[in-house]
């Protein structure tokens, strides 16, 4: 089998997957009576047309990629973390609380404290399913989803109760949101007139950190071994339970960091709806990016594009933004299917034979 054939084979499968996604998506678009072609065109190109929209895409991709990096760590150790949503929510609460509590601290230190508190909050929320899995073999699929609900309730409770902006109470509108953070802790804007903030640099730092951690350190080696074959890892003296727990803490901490960066860079206070699906989209980004930092960054951009594009379809073509979530679902299904096909060596062998035989004729 030649190299060219292999590359051709893999790219065509990916192309077929993309086309399949578009086709299945169009069926759904047709059922809601939308203009299929225009919808896709708007989603994929409209956000790229001007500076503001483009930066919005990047802003969305920041939390997505940070969460996806964390999910990658968990996944590599053998855990599917679908609790990033809840971990992010708790991270937002703890970092907001830290920001409101320490307002007399010098700026750089203050920012660090806030982000670290976010990481701790998310980390604790990741630790719970991690330790449950490690010690009691509780399925992470159950525990992380349940913790998402608990986190969502906590979030609402704190924003409506203890952490609500006192001004909201006196003015009487009662919007569930915290006080605005001091200007001194806001992340700098990179381009005037847009919301693009310095959090983007953190993405690259964390991506490099994860790459080195997983593939260049003995810690990462053991973590991946624990995920790849639990039995062999135990045999090799690797404390599987420890790595399962720690990787979930890291995963949760990353979701928490994504939350703090989101409030420091974009919202400047905790409000409802910040997490809005980032946790789940993060999982898709991680898988779509091949569970590798080098794939996750472009994948997060693509999903950022989808999110912004979805808002715009709502305005321009009148297709509800929820449709994008439907598209995301389709993408997950197609990725899973395509991965199966890509890993099927027999199939590849067969197709190679077919082409080869035809060439020979």
């Amino acid at each position, binding site marked *: 089998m030649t190299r060219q054939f292999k590359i051709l084979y893999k790219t065509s499968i990916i192309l077929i997957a993309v086309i399949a996604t578009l086709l299945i998506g169009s069926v759904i678009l047709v059922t809601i009576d939308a203009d299929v072609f225009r919808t896709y065109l708007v989603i994929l190109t409209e956000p790229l047309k001007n500076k503001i929209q483009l930066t919005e895409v990047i802003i969305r991709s920041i939390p997505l990629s940070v969460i996806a990096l964390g999910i990658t760590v968990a996944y590599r150790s053998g855990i599917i973390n679908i609790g990033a949503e809840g971990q992010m929510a708790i991270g937002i609460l703890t970092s907001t609380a830290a920001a409101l509590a320490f307002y007399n601290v010098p700026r750089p230190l203050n920012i660090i404290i806030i982000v670290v508190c976010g990481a701790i909050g998310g980390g604790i929320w990741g630790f719970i399913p991690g330790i449950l899995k490690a010690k009691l073999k509780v399925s992470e699929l159950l525990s992380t989803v349940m913790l998402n609900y608990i986190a969502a309730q906590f979030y609402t409770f704190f924003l409506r109760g203890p952490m609500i902006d006192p001004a909201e109470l006196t003015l009487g509108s009662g919007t569930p949101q915290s006080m605005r953070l001091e200007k001194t802790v806001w992340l700098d804007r990179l381009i005037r007139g847009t919301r693009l903030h310095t959090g983007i640099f953190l993405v690259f730092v964390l991506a490099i950190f994860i790459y080195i951690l997983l593939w260049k*350190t003995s810690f990462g*080696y053991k973590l991946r071994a624990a995920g790849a*074959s639990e039995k062999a890892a135990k045999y090799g003296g690797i404390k599987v339970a420890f790595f399962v727990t720690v990787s979930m803490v890291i995963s949760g901490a990353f979701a928490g960091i994504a939350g703090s960066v989101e409030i420091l860079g974009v919202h400047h206070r905790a409000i409802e709806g910040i997490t809005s699906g980032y946790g789940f989209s993060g999982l898709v980004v991680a898988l779509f990016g091949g569970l590798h930092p080098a794939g996750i960054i472009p994948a997060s951009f693509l999903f950022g594009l989808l999110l912004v594009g979805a808002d715009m379809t709502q305005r321009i073509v009148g297709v509800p933004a929820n449709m994008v979530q439907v598209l995301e679902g389709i993408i997950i299904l197609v990725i899973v299917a395509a991965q199966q096909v890509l890993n099927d060596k027999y199939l590849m062998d067969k197709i190679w034979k077919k082409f080869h035989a035809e060439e020979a004729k």
Partner: protein
Amino acid sequence: MDKITSLRMENITKTFPGMKALDNVTIEVKEGEIFALVGENGAGKTTLMNVLMGLYQSDGGCIILNGQKVCFTSPNDSFGCGIGMVHQRYMLVPNLTVKENIALGLKKAWKKVKLDMDFVVSKIEEIGEKYDLVVDPDAYIWQLSVGEQQKVELVKTLCLGAKFLILDEPTSALTPQEIDELIQLLKTMNKKLPMIFISHKLKEVKELSHKLAILRHGKIVFCGDTNDYSSSDIAALMTGREVKMPENNEEKEFGDYALELKNVNVKSIRGFLALNDLNLKVRSGEIMGLAGVSGNGQLELAQIINGLRKIDGGEILFLNEHIENTSPIDIIQKGMGYIPEDRNTEGIVPSFSIKENLILKDIENEQFSNHTIINNKAINDNAEKLREQFDIRCVNTSLSAGALSGGNIQKVILAREIARKPKFLVAVYPTRGLDMGAAQFIHSKLLEMRKNGVGILLISEELDEIMNLSDNIAVIFKGHIQKVLPAKTATRREIGMLMAGVNND
């Protein structure tokens, strides 16, 4: 098609990335024949059978069945023509009964909403009568010994309509008694169906086969009638040199006790005692062979020594330190080496590369990681060195270990465990699935370790291996050491009696 009267694979060629696994291979099997396929690890035996089963597509050549050219593109095609294969790793579901397992593949029993179990049972009985192959349809797979599971695999393959059998190393997981039974069984079955038989044990090949072909590096180097050649002829043809198994006949002083087990009890998952008041002492520089019918506690014994299983009572001392219920890493760091029984998922991480697997226990070693940063160069050098030393056949050491041939996976594990220079080694079936040359090499390595003062607990089902290598032989029965005999004076008969639970003292 009623019968398979002849099967011919002609000029089969198959390349994997970077290597030619099969090169112009031609074999022919006739009615009533048992055709043996032998050759070194990685010679291409399994690959050739996978081509015949339609699992792999060959790059060139064709298959001719009863004089007609056929084309198999999937296992369904070859099943359809009546070719059935018993894989080395059994594909049975442990939580189902025998008949349920067989029903899984038997499409004729699939009625609209339920399985026609009566049909399955009648089919099992029909096969049992025809081939003298009796299994209990209501037994659960987990209740069966490996030998009985093997029988179930045979029945399953025959129920699915096989008229031609491929057996890939069917004996390597069986006890000597089970092997004898299987060979007798195959002999009677052969009257009704032709077979291809793969094995590294020439005794079996001699006893069973009519024709024989030797594969080396993907080429047929010899093909002839089995009866015309002696075992040693075949061995010489296979390896290209004379193979003589080394023996332990060097007198020496042993050191202090390295491993001591005192009154050890272990409960099994099903409640009975897997190890029952077990006492065993092994000195440095001593090879203690552990003989016993499989399933009498050998695996549990290996696991507790290595901290992979908790004990329910008793003491384990390793170099005078208590190691019962400590963690595997502590025991590894104290100098314990372990060759586990399950090489495919325990001995290696299949998706990791060969070179990564070679340092599975040493990743924290300064040589391979400096302040947690991995030293790739050292890992590569180590892999190249071991690859050469242990003759691991692979295109390069960055390939995933799971893609290696069975024997070469075993070599990776052995290379890692021996190169770590342990102070004590627990070796479970160390040469299972190895070709003769490789087995010889491993035996001489074990003797060399003994010479250097390493204590070895050798767990094996091959009495030859145990009698050749051991200083003393302990016989285990129902989790209890029946007796320890000096290897020099022990007889097969005596060991056999002890293994069966007869103890005259």
